[in-house]
């Protein structure tokens, strides 16, 4: 009993790592699929940008609102800029990017690849001597990574603007103080740190989406489950990844 369950849990993990290696090898193989890359960049942006904006506004409002309640109690509402800048750039940007990558980008990628898998398009490609990993997966991974970096930027912009609206218009911070204290707790290095994390999330999210799409079972239930598992695995992978990528630069004293 124990062995089948164990192998059921471990086999896909091994398969995923092999797939990741294949993808990284395929990324450097010429010719690079520029057309697919551009199309996928546009595709991922078109499914992710709307959710980013709509998710970013309540996300930021929620955090700023709660943070400002504490600051009002302390009589330090003028520091709301510092809190907003710190929270947005260090964690909210990357974590909200995680949500978007898991919820929007990788699900869309998985649904797309899964549909091709069950229509046997992937098998057809292989028969024609085309490597689906090079043709489909590598451009998608790079496209999602590029998008993740830009989505993180959008999220930070929404965060700072939303924090301003909430702090200044609704909870009584002074506008000059807000802007002035923005960089009290964060610096340019933190921004770069956040962007690097976002790119890594994009790569991992796209890899999970592609892998689960390429291994999806037959029929509608197979595709549905594949997309469902993609979201779950992406969340499960990205949160620990975020911990490591947050802490390692702190431990090394870079940030």
């Amino acid at each position: 009993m124990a062995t089948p369950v164990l192998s059921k849990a471990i086999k896909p993990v091994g398969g995923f790592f092999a797939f990741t290696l294949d993808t990284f090898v395929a990324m450097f193989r010429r010719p690079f699929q520029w057309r697919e890359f551009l199309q996928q960049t546009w595709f991922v942006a078109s499914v992710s940008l709307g959710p980013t904006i709509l998710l970013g506004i309540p996300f930021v409002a929620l955090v700023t609102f709660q943070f400002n309640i504490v600051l009002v109690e302390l009589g330090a509402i003028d520091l709301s800029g510092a809190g907003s800048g710190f929270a947005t750039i260090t964690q909210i940007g990357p974590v909200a990017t995680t949500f978007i990558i898991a919820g929007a980008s990788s699900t869309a990628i998985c649904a797309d690849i899964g549909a091709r898998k069950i229509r046997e398009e992937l098998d057809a490609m292989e028969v024609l001597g085309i490597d689906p990993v090079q043709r489909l997966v590598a451009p998608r991974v790079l496209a999602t990574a590029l998008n993740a970096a830009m989505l993180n930027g959008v999220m930070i912009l929404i965060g700072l603007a939303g924090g301003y609206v909430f702090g200044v218009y609704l909870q009584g911070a002074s506008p000059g103080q807000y802007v002035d204290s923005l960089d009290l707790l964060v610096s340019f290095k933190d921004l770069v740190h956040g962007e690097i994390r976002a790119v890594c999330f994009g790569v991992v999210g796209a890899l999970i989406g592609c892998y689960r799409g390429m291994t999806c079972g037959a029929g509608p239930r197979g595709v549905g489950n594949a997309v469902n598992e993609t979201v779950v695995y992406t969340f499960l992978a990205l949160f620990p990844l975020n911990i490591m990528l947050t802490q390692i630069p702190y431990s090394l004293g870079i940030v």
Partner: protein
Amino acid sequence: MESRFLNGVKKVAGAPLRLLDDLGRQAEFYGKSIAWTPKAVKSYKGEQVRLIAEVGMSTGALAVIGGSSIITLFITLFAGVTGGLQSFSALKDLQLEALGGFTSAIINPRLLVPIVAGAALAATVGSGFTAQLGAMRVAEEIDALEVIGVRSLPYLVTTRLVAGMITIIPIFAMAMVGAWVGWKVTQVNFFGLSEGTYNHYLDTFMQWQDILFSFAQALGVAVVVILIHTYYGYTAKGGPAGVGQAVGKAVRTSLIAVLAMELVISMALYTNSDVFRISG
């Protein structure tokens, strides 16, 4: 050429109307599924119990790694560790490391757990429902139910709604424990903050009210997530590929709705809260 132009105009001009149409259909679906609650609870007890077990434990590959409750626990645990180390490093810059327990007492119940557990619920339970119902719709199982005289809405949707409302409480409690454990282990065991100091500030600033409020948020989130996900599953079309797209669309919509719902609930509950006294 002319007709193509006219079609284009129709498509653009009709977009707001189609959106309105869709919203109306969703509202009708939500209203009906909620209104069927007494019937579903009374008539479909067996299905109800089975679904409660399924929501907690999940099926298929997700059950192998622990089911939705364990997955949620792990996700909030990791989120708690992230929060713990980020807040610790910020407090260290201000030389206020001792206040680690304070950050945990405020951030966990008010922000981190509702947001992260809401997202985890949408990912595990919600999109599982979309996949199931979508597959049933595409395989014409839902039509078959109607043909044999079972009302599909209470039998499939309302029972899932009730199951979600019941199981969210233990799942959310586990999520809360996960976040606190993660936070404390990070600050006390990894960074060497004294345990007594941590507990002191945690106890001082912990509000029972906050925890109750966050459970209120969790219930709201459960309703929203399950209604949205069952809607997209119930109305899936376009074969197997359509089911995959429906799951993706449902996750996108419900993540936005979760955050919006939480903002509304927390603004309603916390705006005039003066239970929170630091300055006396």
